[in-house]
């Protein structure tokens, strides 16, 4: 991701900032211009709680350069408590500990590193709750 784009999207990546439809209350992440449920264009910003359940996952063993420090890692579909299903990475878990349906919570981790000189990109990942 280039620097201007990652900068623009920082509150999505850090805070799970999406939006909610003012007519039907459907929650969207990432934010949308038109509600997929009722076609309304009247949406307000909405910050997700960061709690969810694991819907599905896949383990990545081969990754491009900026991700290779994290291999193997788990790419997952997580159902957020407020509705949307999002694509994310799991962390603090090894492939043999993963169970479909397990509760997960948002944390902020390194997403990628552009070599030794470049930008470190931070953003949300999900992990099993600590307590």
């Amino acid at each position: 991701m280039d620097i201007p784009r990652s900068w623009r999207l920082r509150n999505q990546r850090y805070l799970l900032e999406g939006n909610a439809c003012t007519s039907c209350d459907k929650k969207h992440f990432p934010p949308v211009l038109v509600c997929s449920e009722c076609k309304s264009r009247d949406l307000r910003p909405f910050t997700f709680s960061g709690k969810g359940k694991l819907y599905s996952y896949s383990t990545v063993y081969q990754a491009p350069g900026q991700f290779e420090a994290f291999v193997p890692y788990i790419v997952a579909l997580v159902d957020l408590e407020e509705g949307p299903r999002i694509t994310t990475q799991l962390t603090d878990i090894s492939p043999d500990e993963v169970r479909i349906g397990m509760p997960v919570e948002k944390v902020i981790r390194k997403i990628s590193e552009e070599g030794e000189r470049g930008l470190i990109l931070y953003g949300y990942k999900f992990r099993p709750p600590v307590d």
Partner: protein
Amino acid sequence: MKMSMKPSLPVGIVGYGAYVPRYRLPATEIARLWRGGQDNAKLPVKQKSLPGPDEDTITMSIEAAHNALKRAEVDPALIRSVWAGSESHPYAVKPSSTIVAQALGIAPHTTAADFEFACKAGTEAMQAALGFAGSGMAQYALAIAMDTAQGRPGDALEYTAAAGGAAFIVGPAKDAVAILEGSFSYTTDTPDFFRRSYQKYPEHGNRFTGEPAYFHHISNSVSILMEDLGLTPKDFASAVFHQPNTKFPKKVASQLGFTSAQIHTGLLAPVIGNTYAGASPLGFTAVLDAAKPGDRLLLASFGSGAGSDAFSFVVTDKIEGIRDRAPSTSDYVERSVEVDYATYARWRKKIRHH
């Protein structure tokens, strides 16, 4: 002459949070590799905490500060300082504190700065936050103490250099879980341990790190603070000292007249190692987790270079209500997964494949 410090407005800790990564490297793994296991009887700690490959001082600071916010139940937008003390900031130029402030919803109406003072960078940030809130410039100030310490492979420091830390939100005494009674800082030019720019690993003065550095500075900060406040070790329910290993904090406690029972709760080094700037503040969160209203608590850091900050806090009855809003320090200490030296070497970039 009064030497201890206290701001004109009464202030205290209104929220606190801990973070320790989940991985542990047993000291026996290091001894196996570098000493043929010969040192096993006299290892300085049992194991050390180790960050995962996607963790650094910034991500760990965000989680500890998030826990402090959960406990304080303060609107992030009311926080006027994000001051992060560490000797392992991921960038040389680009403040860790800016990323922490954005990620927690504190930005943009805040000050942000990275503090550096070896292992006392975090308590230095706490001193500043107490002054910032105590002067009325800020209603709430956030101070963070966090490190992902690195030791040169095979060096004595490799056994202990660990990762973890804590965050504190300072605010008005009426909302505090622990009210500041007074603090004191003691600083000299003592080159016991240092790392030059662009060097990955620090240099240390072996025996020089003990008496003239650790023991001299902590003894002075703590005894001057106690004398000034008219207190003796018996007045404290718990005390936390900087813990580069298991031995030093036990020895300095006994020299100052504290019992092993008084330092037990906050002594985490044996099971997680030396978390550098995070060490004494993290121990202090374990003490707050267990504290009762009315308890008087001592926190004393040490940073090479050298200096020590000492604080006396009195716990209020608000502690019971906020404790369970975030994971306890022991939740983090106990969620542990052992890794071997090879995994550690890869994650900590001691080896690479190109």
